Structure formats: C-alpha cells, structure tokens
C-alpha cells in the first residue's frame, strides 16, 4: 500500500507547485465536503428514505397496537413481541426455515462445487455445458414454480413425474396435496436447486481458475492426485469463495418466498404447512388484517436473527479480516 500512497503524494506536491496555476475551484481537494455529497448524497438520501427511516419507523411501530394504521397511538410495550414469539405459527415458520436451510444450503453447495470441478476437468464442450447449467439463472422463480407445479409435479397421472413413475409401474403421487409424507419438500427444493446451482457453479469456476497450477504439479510429485489433490489443495484454496457461497445461500434461504408462494398458494389461500418466515410475515402485515404492529415486531425479530447468523458465521470463518 505504501508505494501508491507515495506516488499520489508526490503527484499532489507537483500539482500544488508554483509551475501549475490550475483554477483552484475545479479541484475537489479544495472542497471535499461538497464533492462528497454531490457524489454520495443521492444514494445516501434514498437509502435513508427507503431503508433507514422505514427500519426505524418499523421498530417504533412494533411497540404500538397498529391495526390498519401506520400512525398508531396506543403504546403496548413488548406485547407485539410477546404475541409473535408466543404464536405457534411464527415459531413453526422458523422451524420451516431451519429444515429448509439445513437441506438446501449443503446440497446446493455440494452440487454447484461438483459441477464446477467436473467442468474444470473437461476439455471438450466446456463453454456449452457451462451455458446449459447457467441458463436457469435467466428463469424467474415464478416461471420455474409454475413449470414445477403444473408441468412436472402435477398430482394427476399426466404430469411428467407421475408419467415416469407410471413407466416403471408405480402409482401416481399427489405431490402437493398430502402432508404425510411431505412430498411438497421435493418440489420446493428441486426447483431452487435447478434455479441456483448454475449461479454458484460460476463462482466456483472463477475461483478454481485462480488456483495456481504449480500447486497441483508439486502435489503430483508427492503422489497426491485425484481425490487427494482435491482434499488438500483445491478445497483449502477455495476457502474464501466457499465462505461467500455459504453466506449467500443462507441469506437466500432465509428470504425464500417466491417459490413457496407460487407452488403452494391456492385460490383459497396459503396452506397451514411449509410457511417460511417471509410468507408468515406477508400474511400478518399485508393479509386481510393489516397488522403493522405484529408485522413490524416479526420483521425486527427476523432481521436480528439474520444479522446474528451473519455475524456468527463471519466470526467463525474469519470473514472480513481479508477485506479492507
């Protein structure tokens, strides 16, 4: 870092020397405060109005009885928080998230890393296969959800999954309308896998290409190839990327909404099972009763939870130390 700093210092000295009488009003060093706000001001103002103030407002609302109003007057202390934490539906939405994340995070991680390693080892048609696995990134959760719901996992015998079951002599399965066994998990998780493994595969591919080749050559001399090379060279070298991917996967699982809503919601409403936190929050704050007090309390609890998750994972993996 010292070399560029020194270079800019000497450049600064050269500029302020008597040889160059540049018009001083044009240099930002003369009025850095003005220029800082010219550049950062629009963003910061918008962030304040649409993110920071709403969060503050929401915290305030969470201490009031706010049915159908955003300017309530009845202070209720921690009653909303007590109501949310005491609500079995809210707690079960947290359980749903844990179950969902416990499956989707490691599975997506392993498959996308596997695809990247597979592609990296392939000399033939790599660009084509990469495009194929990456293509679902162009698909929205809504489109994918309706292909899964009305094309693949329809409960009737003409859906793709049940047709394949029929070919091997099995009875059709009502994928989305039974709770025992919970087949809907298969539908929900496969749609997310299909949509996002290509995204993370690209991250791993980029990281694989940054690994110095000579590490493998040195290891090969010691007899470490194949699985050993992966275990002792590739995987440790991918540490930063793996951490980032795990974090992104966790946050994305926490925000799950689109595919749950579009696969499970019916004209009669959302079923009482498989409600992730955001679906629950949506029903509370924007359903038939607009309860902004409880809804805000729920949002605050969820925000704290994800922040704690992020910080703990950051501490555990030493994230942010390499940053800045």
């Amino acid at each position, binding site marked *: 870092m010292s070399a*560029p700093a020194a270079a800019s210092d000497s450049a600064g000295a050269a500029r302020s020397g008597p040889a160059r009488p*540049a018009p001083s009003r044009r*240099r*930002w060093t003369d009025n*850095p*405060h003005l*220029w*800082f706000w*010219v*550049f*950062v001001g629009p*963003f910061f103002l918008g*962030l304040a*109005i649409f*993110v920071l*103030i*709403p969060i503050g*407002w929401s915290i305030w609302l969470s201490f009031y009885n706010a049915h159908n109003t*955003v300017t309530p007057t009845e202070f209720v202390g921690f009653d909303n928080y007590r109501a949310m934490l005491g609500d079995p539906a809210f707690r079960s939405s947290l359980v749903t998230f844990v179950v969902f994340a416990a499956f989707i995070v490691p599975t997506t991680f392993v498959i996308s890393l596997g695809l990247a390693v597979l592609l990296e*080892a392939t000399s033939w048609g790599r660009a084509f*296969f990469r*495009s194929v696995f990456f*293509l*679902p*990134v*162009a698909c*929205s*959760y*809504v*489109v994918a959800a*309706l292909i899964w719901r009305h*094309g693949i996992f*329809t409960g*009737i*015998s*003409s859906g*793709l999954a049940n047709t394949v079951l029929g070919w091997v002599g099995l009875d059709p399965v009502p994928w989305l309308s039974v709770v025992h066994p919970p087949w809907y998990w298969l539908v929900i998780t496969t749609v997310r896998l*299909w949509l996002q493994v290509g995204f*993370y595969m*690209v*991250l791993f591919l980029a990281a694989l290409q940054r690994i110095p080749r000579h590490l*493998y050559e040195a290891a*090969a001399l010691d*007899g470490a*190839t194949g699985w050993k090379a992966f275990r002792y060279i590739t995987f440790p070298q991918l540490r930063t990327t793996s*951490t*980032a991917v795990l974090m992104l996967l966790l*946050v994305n699982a926490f925000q799950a909404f*689109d595919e749950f809503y*579009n696969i499970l*919601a*019916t*004209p009669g409403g959302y079923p009482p099972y498989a409600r992730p936190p*955001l679906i629950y929050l*949506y029903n509370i704050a*924007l359903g038939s009763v607009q309860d*902004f007090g409880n809804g805000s309390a729920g*949002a605050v609890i969820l925000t704290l939870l*994800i*922040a704690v998750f992020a910080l703990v994972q950051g501490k555990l993996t030493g994230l942010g130390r390499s940053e800045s």
Partner: protein
Amino acid sequence: MSSVGVGQGDRRAAKVARGIVLVLLTIAFLIPFYLLVRDALSTDQQINNVNGWTWFPSNPQWHNLIDAFNDPSAPLGRSMLNSLFIAVTQTVGVLVISGMAGYGLARIRVRYASAVFYVVLATLLIPAAVTFVPSFVMVSTLGWVSTLRGLIVPGLFQALATFLFRQYFLGFPKELEEAAQIDGAGPWRTFWRIVVPNSWSFVAAIATITFIGSWNAFLWPLVIGQDQNSWTVQITLSTYATAQSINLHGMFMAALISMVPLLLMFLFLQRWIVAGVEQTGINE
C-alpha cells in the same frame, strides 16, 4: 488434472464417464425448458393427456401466442411493458446512483466517509426482503401503492451495487484521473469523461445482473402492485398459477414469452452476466 501414476486406459475411462455424466445432467437441466415449450404450443387436452405421454404436439398451436395477449384476467402485454420500463429505469438509475456513490466513497477523503461506508455495510447485512414491511409502510404513506413510482424508486438505492462500485473504483488506476485533473478537469468531468468510459466492462456486468434481478422480482411487485394496471409480468404469471380454473396453455405460453428478453440477453451478453455473477460472489 494430473496423470502421474494413472494409466492411459483409466484416463480414457474417466473421460468417458465425465462425458456421460455431463450429457445426462444437460438433459435433466433442459427438461423444464422442453416442457415449457411443449405445453405453450399444446391444447389443454394434450397437456393433460390421459392416454399417454405426448412428446410434442403434432399440430403446434401457434395461435396460443396471440391468445396469450388477449386474456382479460391476465394483462400480459401491459405487464410486460411495465416490467420493461421498471427494469430499464432501475438499471440505469442504479448504475448512475451507485456508480457515483461508489466513486465518492472510494476517492473522496472526508472525516465521515468511513462512517457512511459502515452504514452501507450494515444495510448489506439486512436482506431487503425482510424489510418489505417497513418499506411498504413508507411507500403507502407516500401514496405510491399501485404506482410505477412505488415499484421503481425504492429499488434504486442498492447497497450491494454501491459496495461493488466502491471496491472496483479503489482499484481504478489513479494516474488516469490525475492526468485529467492536471488538464483542469474537476471531479465531475473526471468521473464522467475519464473514469466511466474506462469502466464499461464493469458497468456492463453490474447492468446485466441488475436488469435480471429487476425483471424477475416478485415479492415487492406483489406487495405494491395491487391494481391490475401496475402488475409486472411476474405478478401476471403468478395469478395464472394460483387461479381457480387454470388456463394451462395460456399460462405456459405467457411464461415462455416472459422469458424472451432474458433469453436474448443470455444469447448476446452472457459474458457480462457471468462477470456480474462473479462480482457478487467475490465481494462477500
């Protein structure tokens, strides 16, 4: 990777095995797209054929394409235009707003610059989706529910994009800017005439992923687009999926049409999309 101690035959076998796995995976990954196209060109009877599987309709229903735009309960044309307008304005807006903010944070040394930067970092930790309740409260207070303003403006201030631009500009060669300043250019002109024109590939990467995110967004448009005129294309598709009686061929055709802009992007701009995805991963 390496072949020390591995025989010629083993290597060929591994190569063949890899090839088979890749081809099988390719088929599995393409099946949903195949179903989408098949069902979009079928009648509902062909889709729900009780007499066996139809691989492809022998008489493709091309008129489904026209019909998809004429369903009064699912305004596809209007919602596609809404989505296009929203995605374009949000992309341009995010590039300008976050690009400027990122540059300011990277280059201008004022006492509170790091404090502002930590606020940006803190908002990165809070997923936007979790704050939809407070954001809705704000937008409804402004009277922006069911308006394009309400759909667009809150999405213009992306902490992630600002963060990525800051990281990028930290690595931008200072010499170019200093040369411009010696020629008498102020910060404004230096940024727009020197820095931006030399950053197109980074701008393109951020632009493509912003556009895709905006086009595919669902939760916020669902919350704000309560009136049919303000529906985005994803909301229109969603009403198909959750309707009382489902118009299958119409739904699949609409879904296929909704993907056209992004498929075109993938065809011509995939390089930049990949670069954009790599950026979002590297920062964390």
